[in-house]
């Protein structure tokens, strides 16, 4: 059976890698080209003379601050809104999922199905009502105005992921802790939460990515750089010629917003080690 990992498999790997990574490579390569190089028509794959100019412009390291399209402000909004939405969603989902996994109450199935229904609800259909409501509540163009819907739309998924993790943790863990002298809250905090950590991180990553990449709500519920996030801000990248958007700067912005995502995945990948519970019960 060893021989199976032969030429065919490697060929398959390469095809898939090229298929997935070529667009990314294209964006990275674009981001190092000068503005002039792309506007003069059909550019080649590799930049003629690679330059950091686009990064410098977007990150406001040049003298002309207006050229940066307020990218830094958008980046700050993106980080703030995504992180707060993630923390809130995970905290609420942890408690909710624990209740769903452990307690026997009437309407448990209903809660779970409702959560799933919300997750499946098309976001676009809510944009109009939300826009009206947020204006009335003075939430339009504010951080909470985005945090609340982001949190709401990611909660169902987070609850589903976490309740699956909680169900995996043997009941005895908690009972042992109680016999050892823990209150229910101590047992939850000192035993259950550490054991569910991989689940918590998974839920956190999913939530963060949703908030980080979201576009429809971000463009509809914001009006200024006070709360506009990167995906929305990028649609305002317009050069002198409206028919010729600054592709290189768009590519650069894309690369910059991808970096945190990659860092987070690499960081938490170690945390999401399956089998943390191995050894708790009989081997």
């Amino acid at each position, binding site marked *: 059976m060893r021989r199976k990992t032969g030429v065919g498999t490697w060929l398959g790997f390469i095809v898939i890698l090229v298929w997935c990574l070529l667009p990314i490579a294209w964006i990275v390569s674009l981001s190092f080209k000068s503005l002039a190089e792309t506007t003069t028509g059909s550019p080649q794959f590799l930049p003629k003379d690679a330059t950091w100019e686009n990064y410098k412009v977007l990150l406001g390291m040049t003298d002309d601050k207006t050229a940066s399209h307020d990218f830094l402000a958008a980046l700050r909004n993106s980080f703030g809104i995504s992180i707060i939405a993630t923390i809130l969603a995970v905290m609420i989902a942890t408690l909710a999922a624990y209740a769903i996994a452990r307690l026997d109450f009437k309407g448990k199935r209903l809660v779970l199905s409702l959560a799933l229904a919300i997750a499946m609800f098309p976001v676009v259909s809510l944009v109009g009502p939300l826009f009206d409501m947020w204006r009335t509540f003075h939430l339009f163009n504010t951080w909470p105005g985005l945090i609340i819907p982001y949190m709401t739309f990611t909660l169902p998924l987070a609850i589903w992921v976490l309740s699956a993790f909680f169900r995996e943790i*043997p009941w*005895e*863990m908690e*009972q*042992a*802790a*109680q*016999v*050892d*002298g*823990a*209150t229910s809250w*101590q047992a939850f905090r*000192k*035993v259950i939460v*550490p*054991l569910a*950590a991989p689940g918590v991180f998974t839920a956190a990553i999913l939530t963060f990515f949703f908030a980080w990449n979201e576009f429809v709500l971000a463009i509809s519920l914001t009006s200024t750089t006070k709360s506009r996030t990167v995906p929305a801000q990028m649609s305002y990248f317009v050069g002198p010629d409206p028919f010729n958007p600054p592709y290189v700067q768009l590519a650069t912005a894309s690369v910059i917003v991808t970096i945190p995502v990659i860092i987070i995945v690499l960081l938490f990948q170690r945390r999401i080690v399956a089998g*943390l*519970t*191995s*050894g*708790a*019960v*009989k*081997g």
Partner: protein
Amino acid sequence: MAAIEMKNIVKQYGDGFPAVNDISIDVEDGEFMILVGPSGCGKSTLLRMIVGLEDITSGDMMIGGKRVNDLAPRERNLAMVFQNYALYPHLTVYENIAFPLRLAGASNEEVDKKVRDASRTLELDEHLERKPGNLSGGQRQRVAMGRAIVRDAEAFLFDEPLSNLDAKLRGQMRTEISRLQRRLGITTVYVTHDQTEAMTLGDRVAVLKRGILQQLATPRELYTNPVNLFVAGFIGSPPMNFLPATVEGSSVKLPFGTVTISADRAKRAQGKGLLIAGIRPEHFEDAAVMESGKATPGSTFRTKVDVVEWLGNQAFAYSPFEAPEEVQQQLLQLERDLDGEALHTQLVISLDSSSRVKEGDEAEIWVDSSKIHLFDPATGENLTVDESAAGISPSDTSTAEIADKQDSIASPGEQEAAKET
């Protein structure tokens, strides 16, 4: 340390499933009490009611003279070892053992001293910094015990602690637990379905069936004086032989022949019609290897042996027999109660290893007629029991009523749950 008194304890689940029915057991201070029975007999449920993980439907649970029915597990100050150990996988062995102390808010020096004491006792010193996931089954078992002994608990509770270990380790840990308990002198309640553990570890053993206490006695009393068919069949390995028997005068007619029993015992079984005789395998012997004169007429019979198992220190001979329908039914029911699966009725005879009986031989077998028990097939009650040496047994140990109730309620899923507890 404290005595545990259970007074008329009843456990009924939400759906009406009667798991524990009116059980009263006094565990004395420092005593090693075993709760034993086949799966679904309510022994684990009873243990979990002592520790507080299961609500008590009615009755009083007294620990150290204080009623604890309404106390949370952490307020009862008991230490428990779970069947699957329930170690905290994210903590090191040291922190696992220290966990109860940390919850109690002990100082670091105190924690360190007590953990190291416990680890020395259990020979865990070189594993203290490891995680439970990297330990063998026996080591995990010891960590679980460490977590129990590290604090000054009122009592130890064990829920089938050895059932996940292999046979050799189980034997070693059994002696280890026994030694530890004797040394610490702490009240212990130990749940098992294994009659060997029950016999070897316990000061006293409580045999349960369908949530009803059958007999509470020392291992010796249980073995020599079982109050009914169930206890007789449960205690002892290989199990007691059950044969159809009729008593006339002082002679007992068995499928293989007739033996004489003492007049006193015969009197109690007089006029009851068809009975079940219970004879342990070791109360038979090959007449050929016995001292002459001991194998008197009236105490031997001839039978055809179809299988012989020679083990070195002893040998087992098997001899099939036919039982009449009514006895057959009772024996099949008993087998089901004991979680067994008997294919046919056979006599198991333990022979001296010097015996030369071979498969297919017709052998002359001696039986120690003073050790024969006679059971009433209808009630299962032992007619020849010596009540002065049979420990405690409730006046009514019949489980028929409860069995009907349990069977009518238990759906397959619940039966599974009942088996687990």
